[in-house]
C-alpha cells in the first residue's frame, strides 16, 4: 500500500466531492469508462472520492450525465506541488543546489576512524594517511587503496597489517600492531647482586651465583648478597650473572611540611573563540590566540560523522598569587601531599608496621610517618674484571 501511495503521490491525484443526482449511476459510469475511484465515501448524499489527474479530466461528462455537481476538495501530489512553485525560481535553485551538494559530498570522505590500535596513536596513523592523500574532503574513488596501504605500512614501523575501507563517506582504517617479543636475557656480563638499602634479610633465594648472606643477617647499602663468582670442582673459578631475589625488612620515613602561605597560579580571565571546519575549510569566528587550548567537537547524526566540526579555543590568563590557607585547608593539603608521596613510594613493597605523627600550628602543618616495610633490596652491579694477557 505504501508503494501505491507513493506512486499516487508522484503521479498526483485529486480529492473531490460530488453532490445531487444519482450517486450509483455516477459510480457505475465511472467504472464503465475506466475512471479509477478510491476512498469512496457517501456522507449525507454527498460522495467524497479520489481519482487520478487523467480521471478527473474525464469526470465532467460522467457527472453531467448522472446529474451530479463535482467540486475539487484538494489536489495532492508532486505535479501540483511543482506547478504551484514553478514561478519561484529560488526554490528550484535551492533544490538543484541541494541535489548538487548531496551528489558531490556523498562521494567525498567525511570522517576517518582508526580501530585496532593501542600503542600507536590514532592521530599518528591519521597523520600518515593524510600525508599519503587520504584526508577529509578527498574523493573516495580517487584513492589508490593498495599503494596507500603499502606506503603507510612503510611509514608506520609498529604496524604489521593495515587495511582501509572506504564505505560511502566514511573511511575506516583497521590496523594490527606489532607484538614485541619479550626480552630474553642474553647478556652474560658477570654481575653481583648487592643491597640497594639497609635492612635485615627475610627471604633469600639465589637462582644463579653464590649466596653470600644468610636469612636474618643485617645488611648495609652496597653489601654483597649474591656473588657472580662460582667455584668449580677443580677449585678454579668462573664468572656468571648472579640472579635471585632478596627480601629484607627496611625502615622508611616520610615527612611532609605544609605552610599556610603558598604561592599559586590563579586563573584571572578566560576568553573563548570558535573555529568551524567544513571538510578542509576552516572558518574562524573571531581572533584565535596562538597559545589557546583547542578542543575539537565532531557532529554526529545517528552515529554518522558529519563533515562539519566545531573547535573551541580557550585562552586562560593565569596570575601568580600569594594565598593564605585556613588551618583545615592547610591540613588537607598536607594530607594530600603525604598520601601522594606514600602512593609513590609504597608501590612495590609491603608495609608491616606504621607509626604516624602530626604537628599542627597556626601557620603550618607537618605530617610524619615511620614505616617498617618488606621489599626486594637486590640490585645488579657489574663486576670489574681485568683480563691479564698471557
Amino acid at each position, binding site marked *: 500500500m505504501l508503494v501505491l501511495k507513493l506512486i499516487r503521490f508522484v503521479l498526483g491525484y485529486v480529492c473531490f466531492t460530488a453532490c445531487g443526482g444519482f*450517486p*450509483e449511476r455516477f*459510480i*457505475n459510469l465511472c*467504472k464503465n469508462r475506466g475512471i*479509477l*475511484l*478510491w*476512498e*469512496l*465515501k*457517501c*456522507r*449525507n448524499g454527498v*460522495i467524497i472520492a479520489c481519482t487520478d489527474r487523467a480521471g478527473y479530466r474525464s469526470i465532467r461528462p460522467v457527472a453531467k450525465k448522472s446529474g451530479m455537481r463535482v467540486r475539487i476538495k484538494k489536489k495532492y501530489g508532486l505535479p501540483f506541488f511543482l506547478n504551484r512553485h514553478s514561478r519561484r525560481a529560488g526554490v528550484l535553485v535551492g533544490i538543484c543546489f541541494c541535489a548538487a551538494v548531496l551528489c558531490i559530498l556523498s562521494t567525498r570522505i567525511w570522517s576517518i576512524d582508526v580501530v585496532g590500535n593501542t600503542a600507536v596513536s590514532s592521530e599518528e596513523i591519521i597523520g600518515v594517511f593524510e600525508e599519503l592523500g587520504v584526508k577529509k574532503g578527498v574523493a573516495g574513488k580517487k584513492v589508490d587503496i593498495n599503494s596507500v596501504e603499502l606506503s603507510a605500512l612503510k611509514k608506520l614501523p609498529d604496524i604489521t597489517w593495515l587495511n582501509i575501507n572506504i564505505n560511502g563517506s566514511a573511511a575506516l582504517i583497521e590496523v594490527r600492531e606489532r607484538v614485541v617479543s619479550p626480552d630474553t636475557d642474553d647478556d652474560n656480563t658477570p654481575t653481583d647482586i648487592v643491597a640497594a638499602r639497609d635492612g635485615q634479610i627475610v627471604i633469600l633465594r639465589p637462582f644463579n651465583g653464590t649466596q653470600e648472606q644468610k636469612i636474618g643477617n643485617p645488611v648495609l647499602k652496597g653489601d654483597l648478597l649474591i656473588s657472580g663468582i662460582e667455584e668449580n670442582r677443580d677449585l678454579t673459578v668462573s664468572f656468571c650473572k648472579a640472579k635471585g631475589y632478596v627480601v629484607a625488612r627496611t625502615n622508611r620515613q616520610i615527612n611532609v611540611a605544609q605552610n599556610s602561605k603558598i604561592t599559586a597560579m590563579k586563573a584571572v580571565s578566560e576568553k573563548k573563540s570558535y573555529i568551524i571546519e567544513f571538510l578542509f575549510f576552516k572558518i574562524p569566528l573571531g581572533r584565535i590566540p596562538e597559545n589557546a587550548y583547542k578542543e575539537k567537537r565532531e557532529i554526529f547524526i545517528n552515529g554518522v560523522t558529519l563533515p562539519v566540526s566545531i573547535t573551541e579555543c580557550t585562552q586562560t590568563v593565569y596570575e601568580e598569587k600569594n594565598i593564605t590557607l585556613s588551618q583545615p585547608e592547610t591540613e588537607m593539603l598536607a594530607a594530600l601531599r603525604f598520601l601522594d608521596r606514600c602512593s609513590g613510594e609504597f608501590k612495590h613493597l609491603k608495609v608491616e608496621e606504621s607509626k604516624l605523627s602530626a604537628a599542627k600550628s597556626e601557620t603550618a602543618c607537618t605530617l610524619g610517618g615511620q614505616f617498617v616495610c618488606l621489599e626486594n633490596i637486590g640490585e645488579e652491579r657489574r663486576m670489574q674484571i681485568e683480563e691479564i694477557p698471557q
Partner: protein
Amino acid sequence: MRNRRKSNNRGERIIESITRNLDLPQDAVSGYAHIEISGNREAIIEGCQGVLEYGDNLIALNTGRLTVRVCGCGLTIVSMQNGQAIIKGTITGVDYCN
C-alpha cells in the same frame, strides 16, 4: 421462452453437479461472486458488475446472479476496479437477493 429457461436450468444443474463432483470452487465456474469478509471491518467482493445502491449505511452491489447488500455504518468503497470492490467500515450484515 419456457423451453429456453428449462434448458438453462438443466445446463446450470449439470454444471453444478460437475463442479460438486470434481470439488471445484463454485465461483470459478458458476458465475457466483466470491466474497471475503475480514471480521466486521472489510469485505472484498469479486465479480462485482455495478453499484445499485450507495449510502453511508448500505451498499448494494450487482454481482450478476445475485445482489449483495452490505449493511453497516461508515461504509466506504476503498477501491473498485477489475470487477473487485473493497468495502471498509463497520459491517453489521450481508444480505443476498435475486
